[in-house]
């Protein structure tokens, strides 16, 4: 077992020493504490003792050579028990398990440092187009600098301008770019005389974010069915006056729509579910979110446990939530926990719509305008009250077949009403 002998620390502030004389030569036996060489420093002359019993194998430092403290001066073949001891002192290189290369960690991809944000804004760089080289996929300042240099990740407004520029001489490029970008606002829109800029309110921003998130996250599929609601129209027409007098609530079509949806959801629990990345959660409670618009915003208050309510109960809930929405008195609890959304787009005359899913729900159903149309029944043409129902569904959770079956049951339920149906 050969051990390295290092230049020892021979006093305060001494950092190096000069080997003046070797007292041993290769092959000489040494005992522990026996001097092996003489060393001169700025402050002292000293002998360096051997730290082991053994035999000198090699002199590394030459006489007259100045050696830093801690540097190798000679080697000793350690004898006997001490060999074991010396061996134990040599550090065992521990194997550090390297993370597998294919395990890509993207957790920090959207964490931007102040420098990154500033550079991106100043240079019109769309950070979503960059790949981060930092820890957890973080985009570093250097990544942005590289992108600026290579012209990668420029946002659309900048791309348009730079496309124009390419035809001009290179020297003019910087000035031209500044000029061209100037009249544009942050989002790249050009303002003309008379245009009015409306600052985005908190609610508007929230709606925007939720819509983008939903459209971005959930692959939307869309389907529509036609419903013959002639019977329901007659029923409502016959009942509405009595109903209002008796119950103090206006009888609209909405409770009937919701009832048909709720009963059908019971048959198709996947429509009453939530996408949770690694699983689909089938919700037990049926809480119907109901789109309710004001002049400047859209809210979706929730009728909780809608399956426990009859037409009267639903009518009261709908009216109550609609009033609260208009009065701006919705509470947080009124907005939480929805599992499926209905949307009465017919109320403003729409006959077809493609709603955006109220994330993370599985689907949203629009009830369109009821209009009288000629319809062929039993090879005869009849004038019927027709309504389209349109559904957007999260294709991760549902496929068209189940959605179609569900929609068909809603249709059948709505068509089953006649002028004399009891509810």
């Amino acid at each position, binding site marked *: 077992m050969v051990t390295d002998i290092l230049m020892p*620390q021979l006093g305060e*502030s001494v950092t190096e020493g000069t080997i003046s004389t070797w007292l041993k030569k290769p092959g000489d036996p040494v005992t522990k504490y026996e001097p092996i060489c003489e060393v001169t420093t700025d402050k002292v002359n000293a002998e360096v003792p051997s730290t082991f019993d053994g035999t000198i194998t090699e002199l590394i430092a030459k006489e007259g050579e100045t050696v830093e403290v801690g540097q190798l001066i000679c080697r000793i073949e350690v004898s006997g028990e001490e060999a074991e001891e010396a061996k134990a002192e040599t550090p065992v290189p521990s194997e550090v398990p390297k993370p597998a290369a294919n395990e890509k960690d993207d957790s920090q991809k959207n964490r931007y*440092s102040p420098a990154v944000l500033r550079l991106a804004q100043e240079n019109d760089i769309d950070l979503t187009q960059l790949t981060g080289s*930092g820890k957890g996929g973080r985009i*570093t300042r*250097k990544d942005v600098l590289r992108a600026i240099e290579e012209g990668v990740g420029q946002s659309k407004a900048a791309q348009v301008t730079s496309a124009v520029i390419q035809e001009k001489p290179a020297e003019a490029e910087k000035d031209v770019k500044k000029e061209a970008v100037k009249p544009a606002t942050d989002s790249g829109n050009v303002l003309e005389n008379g245009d009015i800029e409306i600052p985005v309110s908190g609610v508007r921003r929230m709606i925007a974010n939720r819509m983008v998130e939903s459209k971005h996250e959930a692959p939307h599929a869309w389907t529509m069915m036609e419903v013959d609601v002639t019977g329901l129209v007659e029923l409502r027409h016959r009942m509405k006056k009595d109903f209002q007098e008796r119950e103090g609530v206006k009888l609209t079509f909405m409770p009937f729509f919701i009832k048909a949806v709720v009963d059908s959801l019971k048959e198709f629990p996947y429509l009453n579910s939530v996408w949770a990345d690694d699983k689909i959660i089938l919700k037990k409670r049926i809480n119907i979110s109901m789109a309710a618009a004001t002049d400047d915003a859209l809210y979706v208050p929730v009728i909780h446990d809608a399956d426990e309510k009859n037409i009267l109960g639903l009518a009261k809930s709908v009216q109550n939530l609609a009033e609260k929405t208009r009065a701006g008195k919705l509470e947080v609890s009124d907005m939480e926990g929805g599992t499926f959304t209905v949307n009465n787009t017919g109320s403003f005359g729409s006959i077809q719509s493609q709603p955006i899913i109220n994330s993370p729900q599985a689907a949203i159903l629009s009830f369109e305008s009821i209009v009288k149309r000629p319809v062929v029944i039993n090879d005869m043409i009849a004038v019927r009250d027709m309504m389209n129902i349109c559904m957007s569904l999260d294709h991760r959770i549902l496929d068209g077949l189940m959605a179609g079956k569900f929609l068909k049951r809603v249709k059948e339920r709505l068509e089953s009403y006649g002028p004399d149906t009891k509810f």
Partner: protein
Amino acid sequence: MPVISYIDAVTQALMEEMRRDSCVFVLGEDVGVRGGVFRATVGLYEEFGPDRVLDTPLTESAIVGVGIGAAAYGMRPVAEIQFADFILPAFNQIVSEAARIRYRSNGDWNVPMVIRAPYGGGVHGALYHSQSVEKLFTGVPGLKIVMPSTPYDVKGLLKAAIRDEDPVLFFEHKRCYRLIKGEVPVEDYTLPIGKADVKREGSDVTVITYGLMVHYALQAAEKLEKEGISTHVLDLRTLIPLDKEAVLEAVKKTGKVLIVHEDNKTGGFGGEVAALISEEAFLELDAPVQRLCGPDVPAMPYSPPLEKEFMLNPDKIADAIRELAEF
């Protein structure tokens, strides 16, 4: 240019200033006949005699107090505190008197005095011979604090300190004394107090440091260059006045800052630099400002393995730089 050691630069600066100006004199424990325990004042006694090279009793408060009085009367004393650890008995003189006389007398009196003190560990000096004491003084307006890293900086800054009209604390890292050698011009020169110096240009991580740690940072940078990490090293040279422009400039180079000092972390000068950066260079930052400092334990241990654990070294600095580079 001749290559001399860090401590030779101290001796040369003293020698030349004493020849240049007869008002300059040195005082301290064993600075005379013995030439100083580190040999920093060697040859001065022989050339200038006992009137200008004063061996004092072991009384730091008197060394500084006498110096203050002499300075107020127009002399230019250079007081040596044998080890920076021993400066505490003189603390009151330095803080209450030297730092404040100009302010207190509305400019009528001033103290053109230098207090030299060897500081720092890594020399097996244990509790009373290893401390870094700069943070005790950085928050005291009225003092200038110089902590050079190379022989060139030592000589130029010590001369500037002696010629300065106000008190200067001149901290010399004792491990640098014979470890660090460098080229120093023969002709007379001074360096401005309050100017930092870029010791290495780089683009990935900025290290801001001073004293011995400059060399460790440079060694770490050397090593990391082979790994493809480019390190920018700023040597503050003077803590007070702090060269703010240089700090902010260095931050802009990389956006990632590691502050290194041997003094312990809590209350250390690194916190001041970090605060300056967040106040004035927030939009340049690409990573949280990091500090690598001595641990918050009472003093340097005597046991060699513990001393090694306490002291920063190029490997520890390289690890910290690497971590920032990867951030």
